[in-house]
């Protein structure tokens, strides 16, 4: 199975400047691809387009090898940058966790989610604790691709490692493709098979085959 973006251009309708121009991108099942760009380059925008939250102004996103379904569980799931916006503040954590079905207990334990968090409101958890919930929600048999938009940017190294460990192990086991969006080259170097950069000679254009080891030797 392959998730492919073909010549995607995008602008938010009210202003005339293109945020993304003629982007080509593709990822295979089971692959872990890094998407690297500094802040404000349109990473989140591209992530939303790939996951179907926004329609590209031109170009298209296709999921090859999967019959399209309009309703039901989406095969491409996005983990948002800000977990506090991705959970309903009027819901208790237990309900948030099980919205797409209760994950198995060993996954909950591996993610480090404590039973005592379950009866709290989202405002009573830290960002890192919340993000664990948001990550575990997309770890489902029906998920084919995960787009992780700065998933662990605001977390410390140990928590970051723990969460990525769980997500990548699950992805490997179920042959899920993962797009790792970050401005942190170290993280991308560690976890990705392949890296794509939104910056370059021509801004906004991804050259899909920059190899990981070229990017940063500083980590």
């Amino acid at each position, binding site marked *: 199975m392959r998730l492919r973006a073909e010549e995607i251009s995008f602008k938010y309708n009210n202003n005339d400047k293109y945020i993304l121009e003629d982007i080509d991108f593709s990822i295979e099942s089971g692959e872990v691809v890094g998407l690297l760009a500094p802040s404000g380059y349109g990473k989140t925008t591209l992530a939303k387009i790939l996951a179907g939250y926004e329609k590209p102004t031109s170009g298209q996103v296709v999921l090859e090898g999967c019959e399209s379904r309009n309703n039901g569980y989406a095969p491409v799931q996005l983990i948002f940058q800000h977990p506090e916006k991705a959970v*309903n503040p009027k819901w208790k954590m237990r309900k948030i966790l099980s919205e797409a079905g209760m994950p198995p207990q060993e996954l909950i334990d591996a993610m480090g989610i404590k039973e005592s968090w379950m009866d709290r409101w989202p405002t009573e958890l830290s960002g890192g604790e919340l993000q664990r919930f948001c990550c575990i929600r997309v770890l489902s048999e029906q998920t084919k691709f995960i787009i992780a938009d700065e998933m662990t940017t605001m977390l410390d190294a140990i928590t970051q490692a723990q969460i990525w460990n769980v997500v990548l192990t699950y992805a490997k086991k179920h042959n899920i493709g993962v797009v790792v969006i970050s401005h942190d080259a170290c993280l991308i170097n560690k976890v990705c098979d392949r890296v794509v950069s939104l910056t370059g000679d021509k801004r906004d254009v991804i050259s899909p085959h920059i190899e990981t080891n070229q990017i940063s030797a500083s980590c």
Partner: protein
Amino acid sequence: MMEQVERIQVPQGPLFKFGVREKAIIAIGLFATVFIVILIAGSLIPEDSLDVDLYNIFASPSLAHPFGTDWVGTDMLLRTITGLYLSMKIGIFCAVTSAIIAVLLGIAGPIFGGKIDYVISWLVDLVLSVPHTLVIILVSIACGGGLTGIVIGVTVTHWTSLTRVIRAEVMQVKEMEYTKISRKFGKSKLFIAREHVFPHVIPQLVVGTVLIFPHAILHEASITFLGFGLPPHEPAIGVILSESMKYLTSGKWWLAFFPGASLVLVSMMVENIGRNIEKIINQKTAYM
């Protein structure tokens, strides 16, 4: 360095701050109690206590009859409470039916979008552009007068502004990431409306419902006063008022004054409850 460190202090406020929030809670408690007392008193007054007492007709307010007596000697205080009780029942009923319509249409519009939202917005604009009293009179006459006519009339004219408020709130919640994520989990629009959106509109719903009540009872009284509402044998405030018009010129002021003032007081009280709930919910003003 040490001096600087020592000077840093956590500001110490009084342990219990008597702010807008506390005042609001006290006001709500007080007025709600009065409201409930009137309701209970009204339901306890037996029909035969509204007796004819021909030795005591047109007695002006006194200790025995604080609100005076009418043309057949019935105590006006009892008549007023019975009238308020009826008005309040109608008011509660109208407020609840209007609120149900408002919450259904206010959520359905943005959630289903497209033509449905267009039609609902159009209906709101249409109803808002027609004078209330006129519609209530027409509906009341069309329904043959009486309770049903008034309830339907008030309901069809009073669901609109709350629908607008709820619709605006739903539009915001609909754009939130968690509702969009819910769609990607394959959740239905009905699930999203019920589980994600509804909890967010409860505050507006409560305030809106309470604020419809004063409108409802004042409309009911005025329509009844004009003779298009409740029939003359009902113990309604509107009936008392129109009856008292006959005696007003001969100086029997208490016949109209006390029932009218009570009705206005009750509606102001409930308006005040609504405004205070609003203050408590709106955290920005709560501690000013």
